[in-house]
């Protein structure tokens, strides 16, 4: 009961990176509790996935062969039964979109305290979870005052486990009650590609909430034209319908790796950062000195974009529109 059980993730035939991050986080936690690290691999080609997650530090891998793709009613039943079998101290799941779809139900079903979106874990005298609040402006530490807990961990926060492992791979015969399966996945859709592929661009000018109103968009478009850049944005701009979905950088949008990324009025929420941290050089234009974007920026201007952008357009001989 000092063990850790971590649930891996795959989609459409491919293991997702977060699975290997779970191995790192899970191994680290199991080292602190003095227990073993167990992995759960559920649905799809489980043997192939199990092979891929069999990295150094994994003690046992349990596979549940049932269905192809993620289904939360299958996952919930399989994990609850596996939990009873393995009897771990802590249950780890990814704080991915699918993790958010089953982890709370599993925690409720097993009467486990749940802490989501962990960025750090410590287990000296009970479990302490570090997580962010208020859009990443603060971090908090949460003490779990029970022996057992479920925690979802933030993707891309732990490194991916490396080195081949030699864990035993065992099929777990979960008893899935089909009458409990009340959701059916009927397919997948890719968000429309559109005319521009921002992931191919070398130079991106990206805008966020700081633009305030759609009427201010021509200002940025004038900058894009004057510098021959490609226009991208953070989520709120697409949510508002000011730009099409193919311009969105971030977790639910595109991952971009340009030579230069200028983030204009973008605070740098974790979901956005997931899409642009691979940029070679990041330049921030932002009035808020505490915005998380400054953690990543290589260069920056701490000033009002409505002052800086017109000046920049003029630098490159463009026309500044009236906005």
């Amino acid at each position, binding site marked *: 009961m000092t063990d850790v059980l971590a649930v891996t993730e795959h989609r459409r035939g491919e293991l997702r990176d977060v699975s290997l991050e779970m191995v790192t986080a899970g191994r680290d936690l199991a080292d602190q509790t003095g227990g073993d690290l167990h992995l759960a691999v559920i649905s799809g080609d489980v043997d192939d996935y199990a092979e891929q997650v069999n990295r150094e530090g994994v003690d046992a891998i349990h596979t549940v062969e049932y269905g192809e793709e993620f289904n939360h009613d299958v996952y919930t039943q399989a994990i609850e039964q596996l939990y009873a079998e393995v009897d771990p101290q802590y249950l780890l799941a990814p704080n991915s979109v699918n993790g958010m779809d089953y982890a709370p139900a599993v925690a409720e079903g097993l009467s486990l305290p749940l802490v989501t979106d962990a960025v750090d874990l410590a287990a000296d005298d009970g479990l302490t979870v570090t997580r962010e609040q208020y859009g990443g402006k603060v971090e908090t530490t949460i003490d779990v005052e029970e022996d057992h807990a479920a925690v979802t961990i933030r993707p891309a926060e732990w490194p991916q486990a490396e080195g081949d492992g030699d864990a035993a791979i065992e099929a777990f015969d979960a008893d899935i009650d089909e009458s409990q399966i009340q*959701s059916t996945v009927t397919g997948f859709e890719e968000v429309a590609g559109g005319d521009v592929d921002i992931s191919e661009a070398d130079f991106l000018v990206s805008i966020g909430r700081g633009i305030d109103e759609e009427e201010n968009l021509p200002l940025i478009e004038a900058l894009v034209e004057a510098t021959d850049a490609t226009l991208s944005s953070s989520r709120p701009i697409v949510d508002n319908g000011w730009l099409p979905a193919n311009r969105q950088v971030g977790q639910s949008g595109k991952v971009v790796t340009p030579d230069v990324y200028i983030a204009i009025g973008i605070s740098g929420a974790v979901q956005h950062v997931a899409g642009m941290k691979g940029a070679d050089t990041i330049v921030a234009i932002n009035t808020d000195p505490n915005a998380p974007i400054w953690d990543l920026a290589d260069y920056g201007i701490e000033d009002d974009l409505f002052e800086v952008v017109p000046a920049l357009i003029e630098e490159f001989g463009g026309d500044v529109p009236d906005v």
Partner: protein
Amino acid sequence: MKILVTVKEVAEVEDEFEISGGDIAEQYLEYDLNEWDDYAVEEAVQISEAEDDVEVVTATIGPERSEETIRMALAKGADRAIRVWDDDIESTGKLDVDTKAELLAGVVEEEDPDLVLTGVQAGDESNGATGVTLAEKIGFEWAAVVNQLDLDIEGGVANVHRELEGGVEELTEVESPAVLTIQSGINEPRYASLRGIRQAQSKPLDVQTLDDVGLSADDLESPLAQTDMYEPESEGDATVWSGDAEETAGQLAEFLRDKGVVEG
């Protein structure tokens, strides 16, 4: 048909703030309707406008101050509201996910809705778990992170798109009754009209206590304790150009030319 929408009043933090007593000092907080709940309210109101005999009821856990937020949801088209609060909840401070879901489950039991819509998460605490926890408590089916909803009322099915990572959406049929957690961008939340704001003042807003939702003070005990809050140490080492806008823009322009990404 009845749709219950959970509505949370969230705290938004100013750019500059201080932490005192384990939380952000009150004077740096502004309160507003949770962004994701705004989309959930809009989705419910749109369903009520498209279908006959749909009642939209909002459920909020919050102090009297949150009635301003609740009235906003009513002004946007919800029919009536329930606010759960009493002295025991007040003295508990921050509630964990399980407790919030337990309180909301009490409201569901009373109201017996056909569909529950929640935001994916709240902008302040960002647990992203209350909706699914609630579903499991009340025995409803669910779907998390829904960015398209097509309700087949006769068939008892909600056809949803779940927004996965990397620009992929999962198409799922969810049996009713269900809890759906609504992602931002699913619709275009309306602004409350003046007429709506006037009407909201006379719509029912019922305040319920722990006892009313079938719980007692013992149910508020949490195994989770927030022990510290602090500003994360900046990992940044950005070179910040100084001067007025003309000067900083000049330096950025020079940098871009040096990098070779812009000519001219």
